[in-house]
């Protein structure tokens, strides 16, 4: 078996955090890949919800967009997008929100709006989409992001979706429960400190050094006392992931 790439390790590690049977609101891209990998391995009963209105969807290939036909065809039911946000997310039925972002900060706030000032941005990003409410209303949020100094920053340029705000009890005092429980990158897993809510490295992927993590993180990163190494992907996980990616590529090639 070919050794796992760092992106594969990130995806497998994220997938493992999704417990079987939970209701998961899935963002497109790597979150969708990880959620479906979980469904195809240890979590066959996970209920995947996409904001396009598909509930309990079981795609055999990964959707390129959030509203691919594959998602509707394999769903238990398809509802309108307004209903997804009111009756399914806002009602508190979503246990895990699975999100990506352009920037994540030390307190797990997410930015998908702008780099630079809002009124005259250096880079205009796509925007909020469903993320602010997913981050606010899911019982727990998992965040996947590539480990890069420009992406993991001291303070996001713009808080699109609230994490722990400026740390401590600020999130709960603002009236929000839940919050990010882990940030998974291609180098490490961060978890929020139980008191300060600062993201702390709790797991480090095989072959990654602390030095490397420090150099790639935009704040003075801390490592947990009980820091351990991430369990490497099993052969079974890698086969499932690679099959999924291969099927997806083939399906897209056929369509083009």
């Amino acid at each position, binding site marked *: 078996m070919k050794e796992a790439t760092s992106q594969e390790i990130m995806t497998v590690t994220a997938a493992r955090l999704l417990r079987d049977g939970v209701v998961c609101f899935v963002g497109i891209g790597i979150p969708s890949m990880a959620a479906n990998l979980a469904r195809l391995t240890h979590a066959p009963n996970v209920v995947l919800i996409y904001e396009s209105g598909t509930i309990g969807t079981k795609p055999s290939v990964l959707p390129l967009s959030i509203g691919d036909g594959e998602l*509707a065809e394999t769903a238990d039911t398809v509802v*309108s997008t*307004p209903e997804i946000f009111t009756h399914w997310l806002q009602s508190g039925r979503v246990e895990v929100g699975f999100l990506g972002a352009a920037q994540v900060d030390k307190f797990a706030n997410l930015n998908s*709006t702008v780099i630079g000032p*809002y*009124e005259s941005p250096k880079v205009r990003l*796509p925007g909020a989409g469903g993320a*602010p*409410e997913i981050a606010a209303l899911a019982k727990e949020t998992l965040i996947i992001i590539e480990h890069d100094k420009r992406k993991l920053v001291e303070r996001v340029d713009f808080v699109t979706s609230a994490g722990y705000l400026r740390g401590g009890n600020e999130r709960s005092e603002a009236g929000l429960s839940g919050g990010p429980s882990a940030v998974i990158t291609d180098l490490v897993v961060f978890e929020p400190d139980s008191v300060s809510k600062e993201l702390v490295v709790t797991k480090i992927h095989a072959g990654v050094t602390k030095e490397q993590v420090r150099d790639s993180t935009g704040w003075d990163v801390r490592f947990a006392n009980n820091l351990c190494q991430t369990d490497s992907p099993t052969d079974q996980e890698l086969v499932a992931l690679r099959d999924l990616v291969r099927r997806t590529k083939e399906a897209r090639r056929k369509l*083009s």
Partner: protein
Amino acid sequence: MTPKITNLQSAIKSLVEPGMQVAIEGFTHLIPFAAAQEIIRQGITGLTLIRLTPDVIYDQMIGMGCANKLIFSWGGNPGVGSLHRLRDAVENSWPTSLELDERSHAAMCVAYTAGASGLPFGSLRGFVGSDLPQYNDSIRFLDCPFTKEKLAVTSAIQPDVAIIHAQQADRQGNVMLWGIVGVQKDIALAAKRVLVTVEELVDKFAEKSNATVLPSWTIDTICEVPGGASPSYAHDYYQRDNSAYTEWDEISRSREKFLEWMKHHVLETKSFVEFRERIQS
């Protein structure tokens, strides 16, 4: 009472005027590409464009100067990346500046539903801790009259014209869409006037679970435009042309290439049929 059934050119001419608020909706599925391109072809400008997920077709409209305001929640090329024309308009005011009324999907949904329901606002749990309300006066907060909890509210959206694409209309002008139905029912019922392009006119609808049916008297104009949602898809008719989305990334990166492509494919074609021929050749 019964909608006019006509061709796309005259439909756009009679419904869409410069300066109007226009929502061209479709959530990845059933995006009315043909109708939107006809707006570009007719050179209509000064529009406020409204959509949860402005994508390639709004990128084309913005790059061609149709819009000076955008009400939206996520503007990207789904599965590919940025919209370069949207970015160029926001970052560099090219070809013109673009005012943004930026919300979240949930807030846009609530605004459409309020609009369709004749309410001036809708409530949601949201925006606590987010920076968006600082930059958008259409997002505010109120205290629940019963529990005193702080809730977000957003103003209703009721566009002058809504344009959607559906699989079918029957001969009476009732419209049916199915698969991912998105926000189309809400925006159609929220708008002052409604244009629907359809894949085909049929004698009778088949049973389709999760179908959205819009009665004929809620619609102003119907145009039969087969393939009118392409390169997005129409469930049970054709699939998404993912390569067109990928290629758009390349086409739209430079202003020159973009303008050339638009001239050749849209401005110099008379209709969506001709456009499709040119694309496929």
